[in-house]
């Protein structure tokens, strides 16, 4: 039980608070500057909501920009530790709300941010070296129970481990897919460009990547390997940032894995910051109070954590409940730390038929979807179904009572060549979204 209740110095938690806050601030500002609020949440006429979250709707231009302003303010407040619990709760709610609007933009690292923010609501990361402590020195705390720090280590360990496990498959290890397609795309890079089109390099990257993901969490946990392991974290993530379009993810991981370092290291970080900030911030050197939670509160938190980590441990395995090839059907694919595993592309043609007249129309998808949405939809069965239902509604409005909507989608996966993805004779109007296997997905054959 030492990993749960032993009293530990609060420093790692405080550094995590600042690291997370800063990187979220940068991410959010970057998101706004790229014009993505407009591109992803205002411009699209239709949104692909998650199953069970159909009620989540975007708020219109003013609302969405206000929401992102709130996210930015919350990130700043988290960083400096001002009204911390409110700020991190607000950040979690706003961020998760945005992610729930449209699964087109689903990324594992957005999910990761939601998970981290959620866990951070539960811990007193503002009780040391924060504006909250300056405002109210009586809350200052030096020692916290170990769980408040270890839950983040456990979460990170799970993320890397599952990312590693998901790489243990034929395509990744034996076929060096999709890296043998993706790496040559960067053959224009200086120094290593020419090397990237060599096949053995794709194998080296695949295997090193798998080994890295599988073991890095444990190497970070072990004090004797920690420093070199963190160096590997930096190298690994910077290389991926350089080679692939994965946005802020590498930097987020580099920032948050600092949590693995010892108290001494974190105190050093804080003391450096203290020196820089000395002029502006004056926190009185008081011994601080021990962190005490009422038994009932503590039990609630324990219950939440047990539930959370049980879900975390099981969710990535839910794909086993579905028949068929996971990469092909994507049933149980999301929320499982499956990162950069597939080169999947598709083109989908939808047809609407009026059974009464026998007349039919091919749909110009651009009339309803953004190119980004269309691209993501073409290879994901649940999105194909949602779009088909949208088309059915639209044509009912046009006066066709029982429109027959069929989808003809051609999908290629890791270089196998495009083939029909779902049964193009099935009237998708009559198919319901459930957690069951979608029988109209055509079986996957490698040849």
């Amino acid at each position, binding site marked *: 039980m030492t990993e749960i209740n032993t009293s530990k110095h609060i420093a790692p938690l405080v550094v995590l608070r600042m690291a997370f806050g800063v990187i979220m601030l940068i991410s959010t500002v970057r998101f706004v500057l790229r014009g993505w609020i407009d*591109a992803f949440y205002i411009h699209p006429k239709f949104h692909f909501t998650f199953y069970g979250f159909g009620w989540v709707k975007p708020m219109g231009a003013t609302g969405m920009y206000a929401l992102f302003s709130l996210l930015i303010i919350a990130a700043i407040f988290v960083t400096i530790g001002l009204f911390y619990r409110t700020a991190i709760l607000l950040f979690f709610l706003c961020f998760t709300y945005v992610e729930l609007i449209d699964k087109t*933009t689903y990324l594992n690292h957005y999910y990761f941010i939601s998970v981290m923010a959620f866990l951070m609501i539960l811990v007193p990361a503002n009780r040391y070296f924060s504006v909250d402590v300056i405002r109210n020195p009586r809350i200052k705390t030096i020692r916290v129970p170990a769980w408040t720090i270890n839950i983040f280590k456990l979460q990170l360990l799970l993320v890397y481990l599952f990312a590693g496990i998901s790489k243990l498959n034929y395509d990744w290890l034996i076929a060096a897919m999709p890296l043998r397609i993706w790496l040559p*795309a960067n*053959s224009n890079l200086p120094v290593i460009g020419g090397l990237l*089109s060599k096949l053995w390099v794709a194998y080296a990257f695949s295997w090193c990547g798998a080994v890295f993901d599988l073991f890095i969490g444990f190497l970070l946990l072990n004090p004797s390997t920690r420093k070199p392991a963190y160096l590997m974290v930096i190298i690994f993530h910077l290389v991926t940032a350089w080679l692939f379009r994965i946005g802020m993810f590498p930097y987020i991981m580099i920032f948050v894995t600092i949590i693995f370092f010892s108290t001494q290291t974190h105190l050093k970080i804080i003391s450096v910051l203290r020196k820089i900030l000395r002029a502006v911030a004056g926190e009185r050197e008081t011994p601080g109070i021990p962190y005490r939670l009422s038994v009932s509160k503590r039990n609630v938190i324990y219950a939440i954590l047990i539930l959370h980590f049980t879900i975390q441990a099981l969710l990535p395995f839910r794909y086993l409940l579905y028949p068929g090839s996971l990469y092909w059907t994507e049933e149980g694919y999301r929320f499982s730390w499956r990162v950069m595993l597939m080169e999947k592309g598709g083109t989908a*043609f939808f047809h609407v038929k009026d059974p009464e007249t026998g007349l039919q*129309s091919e749909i110009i998808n651009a009339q309803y979807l953004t190119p980004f949405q269309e691209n993501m939809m073409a290879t994901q069965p649940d999105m194909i179904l949602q779009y088909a239902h949208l088309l059915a509604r639209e044509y009912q409005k046009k006066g066709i009572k029982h429109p027959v909507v069929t989808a003809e989608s051609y999908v290629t996966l890791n270089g196998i060549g495009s083939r029909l993805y779902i049964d193009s004779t099935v009237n998708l109007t009559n198919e319901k979204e459930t957690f069951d296997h979608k029988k109209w997905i055509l079986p996957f054959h490698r040849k």
Partner: protein
Amino acid sequence: MRKSIYVALIAASTLIAVQSCKKSGSSSSTDNSSSFDNKGMLRNISTNIILPAYTSFQTASVNLDAAVSAFNASPDNTRLLALQTAFQATYKQWQAVSVFEFGPAETATLRVNVNTYPTSVSQISSNISSGTYDLSTFANLSAKGLPAMDYLLFGLGADNSSILLMYTSDAAAANRKAYLAKLSAEIKAAATTVLTGWSTYKATFDASAGTATGSSTSLLINQLVYDYEILKNYEVGVPAGVQSMGTTFPTKVQAYYSKMSVQLAILHIQAIQNIYLGKSTQGDGLGLDDYLVKANAKKDGASLNTTIQNQFAAALAKLQGLTDPLSDQIKTNPAAVTAAYTELQKLTVLLKTDMTSSLGVLITFGDNDGD
């Protein structure tokens, strides 16, 4: 156990680092026998296909503008015929440059400025009768460019003598001539701007290897796919009623009034085919076909390149089986038109999904992260 794995990890990464240093130190960029000569392909396409195409298009637009001036100075039947010929030559040459909407053409938004159709007769008429208009507005996109000239040169009357009257005795003749001059001048200016732009952009284009987003190959492929879909949807599908519960729109074809829609569609697909093959008057140079072969791209176990080439041939054959005017063919032989559409559709999948996926090119008409 952990330690040994860790040691192995470090060793492996050091090995890679050393290898990469060695390579970069000792070899020049051309020494890549196993990898595709991406820059060679870009050079071939820019030097032998893109620049000659823009040069011809610009020349055609200069001739067109001159023909308009000559006609406007003294409109007669001979000059009308000469002008119509110059227009047809320009429209044909446009098919060879429509694809390249990146770099200078993207800056000039050349495609919508030159070829937005169906043209709006009512907008053109109101512009002519008012005599004051700003061609750069969004509303006037469908009242200018080649489609507007198509109407003004072929659509004003049943035959040339009645068309001629609209430039001579008609009350709005002076305004109409002025409008025609504005249109041809704008096309000429745009063509010249883009051609001039390419004289400097070519170096940028040639130097940007790889297929990552923003690279020249990625830009080229994205626009090739986009432009191909314009061909499939707007030159054939929409007029044939494929997207409108069978209701046909014969007047929505490209070059409705000059009745050369099929001819243009054939030139268009041939232009795209030549880019794919890297083929020009200089011979069959490096193209996307060679790239796919080098990448060993497969489709159902067979060579993807072969599949694509066969599908180009099949689609082309179907288009060649159609006859102008396409607007009539849609009414008289709709099955032939939809059959052509079906073959074009198959090629869409091969270009948009198979080719891009095999080369690691993202279809991004926008911008987003992945993970």
